[in-house]
């Protein structure tokens, strides 16, 4: 009811914007105001009381919760196809839900972590990053997409460098800045080329619209893909990820590995919603090559790591590869398995970072020796998460991986599946190695690790429970993830159907600008 009231009260320009975006934007403004009020109040800028930080965190949590509730609000009235900024469909709702839940988890993880320094801005940047991620996930327009992406990247930059006293934070921020800038430029060039070719700004691969100059359209698609791959850190554009995750604080690393990747993968799937990815066209080939490189390369990168953050970076690259396999497996299971895998990946990666956060400042594997004796709960939780990432039952990753293999099998993606299986076996080696290290008896001198923050404990417990429960009973989530999104299958009929779902209304005639 509140949502209806809000929708009625909105100026018409905002009526089209999905509710979570509005809620987040409002929350950010309130938080800004609260910070400004307190800083200008008695005590001045120096008064960083604990109460103030808690208030900021509470505002952030309330905003995320309301935004999550806003997902159930009635979809906004859709503008004409050309003018649409957002596609508030089921695919967006699912992706936004995952993003908001993950952001909530990251907020819980950083509840007290960032205290002791100025934590207000951290919460602000977290909300801003979430806003950017949701805009990226939901945008149907190239401009909206780009704006969202920049909000996401810039707030991430702030978050990475938030604690400049961390040894590698500034270096990581610089690396992220340079590469994010470069990839944004490439992406923007691709979007511009697509606009030049098709004359509209819809965020969709220009090849789908039968362009007059396929070469230009292909070039545009490849440039956009390259930009997206940079942000997704798919191999061979992955080199920044390990360094940045290593240098960033743990909640921020989790944000990069989970929220930002979910958003970009959702956008990538939407970009190709109308393109036939089953054939041997150049974008499909490009995606397939990147998928194989990411799976094998990511796992090989993680294989020799002695630093758990870098290990998770490699694992994250490999999982992007698995997701690309699902994306390339057009057919009844492709999108469903991708959606399911996104959830499994988000829960497991978030949980793994939370476990790292439970024993702060010990990212190197050697200091995790004997963790099963020293901190059995943390070790068990991390093992569950790694089992999920490795695809070992009863964790949810087992079913998720089997689902992707099923999707690939039904789409006859044998080469990709072979690569998936080979790289899964490589992956098994390093995930098991972590478990083994935690099981080996600790050296006597090893100090008992400090107490875990309550937010992290709750988050870890909830994620471990969810990972196991959904792994044992995947039925409801499978139900939820089917039919979210139908990527174009070969043949015109299905393509038309997915077109209808994504963009209600007939495609308008394309104005020809070049000619």
């Amino acid at each position: 009811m509140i949502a209806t009231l809000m929708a009625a009260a909105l100026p018409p320009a905002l009526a089209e914007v999905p509710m979570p975006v509005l809620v987040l934007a409002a929350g950010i403004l309130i938080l800004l105001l609260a910070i400004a009020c307190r800083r200008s109040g008695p005590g001045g800028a120096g008064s960083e009381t604990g109460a103030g930080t808690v208030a900021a965190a509470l505002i952030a949590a309330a905003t995320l919760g309301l935004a999550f509730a806003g997902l159930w609000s009635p979809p906004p009235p859709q503008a004409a196809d050309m003018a649409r900024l957002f596609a508030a469909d089921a695919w967006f709702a699912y992706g936004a839900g995952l993003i908001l839940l993950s952001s909530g988890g990251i907020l819980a993880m950083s509840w007290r972590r960032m205290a002791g320094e100025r934590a207000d801005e951290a919460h602000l940047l977290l909300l801003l990053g979430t806003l950017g991620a949701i805009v990226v996930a939901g945008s149907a327009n190239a401009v909206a997409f780009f704006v969202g992406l920049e909000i996401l990247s810039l707030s991430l930059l702030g978050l990475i460098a938030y604690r400049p006293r961390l040894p590698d934070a500034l270096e990581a921020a610089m690396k992220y800045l340079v590469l994010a800038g470069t990839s944004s430029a490439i992406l923007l060039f691709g979007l511009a080329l697509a606009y030049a070719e098709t004359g509209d700004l819809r965020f969709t691969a220009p090849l789908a619209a039968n362009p007059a100059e396929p070469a230009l359209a292909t070039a545009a698609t490849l440039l956009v893909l390259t930009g997206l791959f940079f942000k997704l850190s798919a191999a061979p554009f992955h080199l920044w990820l390990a360094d940045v995750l290593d240098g960033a604080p743990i909640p921020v690393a989790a944000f990069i590995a989970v929220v930002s990747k979910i958003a970009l993968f959702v956008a990538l799937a939407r970009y190709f919603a109308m393109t036939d990815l089953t054939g041997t066209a150049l974008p499909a080939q490009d995606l397939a090559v990147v998928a194989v490189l990411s799976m094998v390369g990511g796992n090989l990168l993680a294989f020799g790591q002695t630093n758990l953050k870098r290990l998770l970076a490699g694992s994250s690259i490999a999982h992007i590869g698995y997701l690309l396999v699902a994306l390339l497996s057009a057919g009844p299971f492709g999108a469903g398995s991708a959606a399911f895998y996104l959830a499994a990946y988000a829960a497991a990666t978030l949980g793994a970072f939370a476990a790292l956060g439970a024993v702060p400042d010990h990212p190197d594997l050697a200091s995790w020796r004997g963790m099963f004796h020293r901190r059995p709960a943390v070790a068990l939780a991390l093992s569950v998460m790694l089992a999920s990432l490795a695809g070992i039952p009863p964790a949810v990753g087992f079913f998720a991986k089997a689902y992707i293999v099923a999707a690939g099998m039904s789409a006859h993606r044998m080469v990709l599946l072979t690569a998936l299986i080979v790289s899964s076996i490589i992956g098994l080696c390093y995930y098991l190695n972590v478990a083994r290290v935690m099981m080996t008896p600790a050296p006597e001198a090893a100090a008992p690790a400090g107490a875990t923050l309550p937010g992290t404990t709750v988050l870890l417990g909830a994620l471990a429970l969810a990972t196991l429960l959904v792994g044992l009973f995947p039925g409801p989530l499978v139900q939820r993830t089917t039919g979210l999104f139908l990527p174009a299958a070969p043949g015109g009929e299905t393509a038309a159907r997915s077109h209808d779902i994504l963009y209600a209304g007939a495609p308008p005639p394309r104005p020809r600008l070049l000619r």
Partner: protein
Amino acid sequence: MMTLYGLVLLPLLGAAVAWLTGRASPRAPWPVAVATLVLLAALLAYITWAVPAGGGPWLAHVSAPWIPALGITLRCDMDGLSLVLLWLTVVLSFPCVLLASRDIADTPGTFHALLLATIAGVDGVFIATDLFLFFFFWELMLVPLYVLITVWGHEDRTRAAFKFFLFTQGSGLLMLLSILGLVFVHQHQTGILTFDYFALATTHLSPVLAMGLMLGFFVAFAVKLPVVPLHVWLPDTHTQAPTAASVLLAGVLLKTGGYGLIRFVVLLFPDAAARFAPVALALGALGILYGAWLSLVQDDIKRLIAYSSVSHLGFVLLGVFSASPLGMTGAVVQMVAHGLSTGALFVIAGALQDRLHTRDMRRMGGLWPALPHLSSVGLVFAIASLGLPGLGNFVGEFLVLLATWRISPPIAILGAAGLVLSALYALTMVGRAFLGPPPGDGWPALPDFGVRHMAVLGAAMALLLVLGLYPQPVLDLSLPAPLPHSALPWGPRP
């Protein structure tokens, strides 16, 4: 019959209780594990007793939806083959817990929980008839065993456990591909997406496709059985595992491979299996000879027993692919007898290691006067394992060789040659460990087997004797239930 689920849930419940009580007191988990096994035996006895007389080859059935969107159900069925192997699992769990795990000092709660979880997974493998559920249990039983070996194993445990996990999980992924291939071919033909074993058996497959899919299954089961080129994980794993895990591995885990070959290779792909039979028979004969040959030259007593397993399970491969009821029942009898005799041998080897702190037979010898009970039991199980008439192993090997002789005399001759070698290595083992001169100046006083060990191993001996003298009940049960629509290689069940 919902009680079938109990076979999986009861050990899991016991595992949880054992783990929780283990946190309170290190002495509590052992009785919990024993109680769980007693209850499990009672449950299985009830299931056996409740089987309707003359109700056809499938003795029990239960089904519940699991993931309806993908046609995956929690379907379990039990036929005589499952029943025999379930009993083997329960029976062999007793020596594991009664003899080998009582003295675990390092977090006994976790140890017993993992042991019971492995048993739950194995039970699930033997009854699941939904292919995805089967695969779930197949992968599930590896995890606790991996941890058991990694934490409680011997000196080179991590490498061994790692090898074990990598081989079985890697081959499991091949099986997943085959399962999905079969499912989608079936869906393409009928429009129904299902993982149901009985529905999938009706799929019409081209010869090439059938061969490809069958090979995916075959590799997974061949790793587990093991078949010779894929056996490299086994000697290390069996040698390094703690005694209880060794018993479970050799006694039960390897049988899941044989069970899979019967249920999912020969019955699901009868034509492809028939065409593949010459290769399988050759691999079986190779395994018998190679395993026996390597057994002969081992100094490590657990390694010797491990290689002897490779040799004995070659007979299972021969029997399964002999395309006759005789060979099939022989293979099952061989699996049961091997489980009992090798399980007992691992108990004895583990006891030796506890007492002597070595598995090296060069540092043994002359143990008979020092450990008369242990040595005599060792002798009995060694000669059982070499196939002395009157004991179960003889029945199994004899039936398999008879069936093999009918289709390929040369293979049968090679298999029989393996029997000669098995006599050699079994007696060499007895001679080197228990007889001969002791090293140095005799043995100090060593604790011999007490009443508990003698009673449990005596029971195993009695079972082997019954199996050897009156195998008919097992023979009657152990022929797998045929699928209603696909003719078995030997036609309808008599």
